[in-house]
């Protein structure tokens, strides 16, 4: 599928600048620059043309440093492979040793095994401190693209690996990465009619799993504050379903607002100063915004149906939401102040859970049509609808901070009246509709929300 992508075109020209004119050592990047000239980007190209990259183990002066160097290279390689945009070269084919490459890469040894890019690195441990020096090389013109050193407590070696992965991603693809991020989600355990639902948080690759709530009350639909230190979610504490704020540093939870009815589907504004949510009253659910400083509540929609799942545009000027005011669930966009409501979804079926891409160019949604669920994207004016994945049950897309990858949850149907076979798992997919992958979690999972970049 092909369509014009203004943001991608801008990024491609930036990429050309990084590599400098025609001296493009990576033929792939040269090829992509050609797309930029024709003003049409074929993003499905990435499916067939991942960048071949070699990621030998980082060298280390001690056993401990060597172990961490191996771990770090392993995480980088996994990150790049999982993105679908890189193809790590088989390590069994390496000619030059990792130790030697860390001194001086012998480029022809990497060229003959098909690597276009190479990373080398060295880890040093002194006391609790870990210093990692890494270099990114363009194999064909034999030039260094990047050289950077990171220092951190040794226990944070994964964080360093993610930061290096983001540098590689950005230097080779010309857009920011998403590896140094976390995902907050709902961990589900127990039988289906009496599930325990707890907030859980993990790194984007499924590591460093941690529970945030103890399961004494159900927790749903967590969403990150733009500073990644606060979460808004829905809690059934005291048997009163309300939107709460959760502070990740202190663990403190507080109810948001003084609403009489249930509050649900919170999202922070892009400036982090307010939360938009839905509140039920009588037969309606309306959208409100709560200012986090003054705690003043302002109603944005009124009457005529269930208005839920509001989400701001990244510039904060508009809100997309889901309403059945016209008879069935459809997507609507309004000004952030509440005026100018217009419907944007007109395809077959019901549309729900809209989320605005951080790049501003797309709105992702859940579509329910003919008994099937689907995750798709459309432009903010409703045009260019594309379905990325379809299945028995799936919903709740969330964008990685660069807008290139989405995560959502996917359910399998029960096989019998006891509910056997039902599961709920997280998946990710490239917005071009390829590289759909299950994210491994210790328990069933739902309602993922991707954090911004942490650094």
């Amino acid at each position, binding site marked *: 599928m092909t369509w014009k992508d203004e943001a991608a075109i801008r990024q491609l020209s930036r990429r050309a600048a990084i590599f400098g004119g025609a001296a493009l050592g990576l033929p792939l990047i040269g090829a992509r620059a050609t797309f930029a000239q024709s003003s049409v980007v074929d993003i499905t190209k990435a499916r067939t043309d991942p960048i071949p990259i070699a990621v030998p183990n980082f060298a280390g002066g001690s056993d401990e440093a060597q172990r961490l160097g191996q771990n770090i290279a392993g995480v980088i390689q996994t990150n790049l492979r999982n993105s679908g945009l890189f193809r790590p070269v088989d390590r069994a084919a390496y000619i030059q040793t990792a130790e030697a490459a860390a001194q001086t890469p012998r480029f022809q040894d990497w060229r003959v095994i098909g690597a276009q890019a190479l990373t080398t690195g060295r880890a040093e441990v002194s006391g609790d401190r870990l210093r990692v020096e890494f270099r990114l090389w363009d194999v064909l013109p034999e030039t260094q693209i990047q050289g950077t050193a990171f220092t951190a407590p040794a226990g944070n070696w994964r964080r360093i690996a993610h930061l290096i992965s983001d540098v590689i991603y950005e230097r080779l693809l010309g857009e920011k990465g998403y590896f140094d991020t976390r995902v907050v989600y709902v961990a589900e355990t127990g039988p289906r009619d009496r599930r325990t639902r707890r907030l859980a948080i993990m790194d984007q690759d499924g590591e460093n799993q941690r529970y945030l709530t103890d399961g004494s009350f159900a927790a749903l639909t967590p969403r990150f504050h733009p500073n990644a230190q606060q979460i808004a979610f829905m809690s059934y504490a005291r048997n*009163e379903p309300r939107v709460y704020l959760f502070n990740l540093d202190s663990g403190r939870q507080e109810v948001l607002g003084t609403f009489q009815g249930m509050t649900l589907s919170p999202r922070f504004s892009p400036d982090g100063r307010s939360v938009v949510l839905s509140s039920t009253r009588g037969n309606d*659910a309306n959208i409100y915004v709560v200012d986090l400083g003054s705690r003043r509540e302002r109603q944005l929609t009124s009457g005529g149906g269930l208005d839920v799942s509001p989400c701001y545009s990244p510039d904060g000027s508009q809100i997309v939401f889901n309403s059945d005011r016209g008879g069935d669930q459809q997507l609507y966009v309004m000004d952030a102040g509440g005026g100018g409501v217009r419907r944007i979804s007109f395809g077959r079926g019901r549309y729900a859970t809209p989320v605005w891409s951080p790049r501003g160019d797309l709105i992702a949604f859940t579509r*329910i049509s003919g008994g099937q669920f689907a995750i798709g994207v459309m432009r903010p004016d409703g045009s260019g609808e594309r379905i990325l994945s379809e299945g028995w049950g799936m919903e709740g897309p969330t964008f990685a901070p660069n807008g290139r990858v989405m995560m959502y949850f996917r359910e399998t149907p029960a096989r019998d009246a006891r509910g056997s076979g039902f599961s709920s798992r997280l998946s990710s997919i490239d917005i071009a509709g390829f590289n759909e992958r299950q994210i491994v979690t210790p328990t069933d999972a739902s309602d993922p929300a991707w954090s911004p970049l942490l650094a």
Partner: protein
Amino acid sequence: MLNTKVMTAFAALALLAACGSSTADNAATGAGAASNTSAGPRPGSQEDLVANVGDRVYFDTDESSVRADQRPVLERQAAWLARYPQVTVQVEGHADERGTREYNLALGQRRANSARDVLVANGAAGARISTISYGKDRPAALGSTDDAWAQNRRAVTVVR
């Protein structure tokens, strides 16, 4: 301490769920012998409501208005509430799994409100009836069939 409380709560819930499913057919058909033998449920209790009145009404897909065939259940509930003025109840609204979580939470709330409105229209005091929605997150029937979904689109009256 907290854990013990949670466990107790779960045990109670499990018990309720068991009662609900084992007597749902009775409740739905409205088999309503109001006279209690000494072995019967305590008058004014949840078990009494389930066994002799019917604790739940069902809804059509994506609908929140009470169906004509379900109205008699709520009318009997209103009469039952009049008989036991000390009882307060919570109406729980639910949805089937064929919708998104957030929308279904709002839909479940609308179903709970619809059921409460009928109870109030039949003389029950609104102050005795709270509502809550669980959306699609607490199914009564665990299958993924039309029949299971029909059982899950419901409003259940629970003695508090």
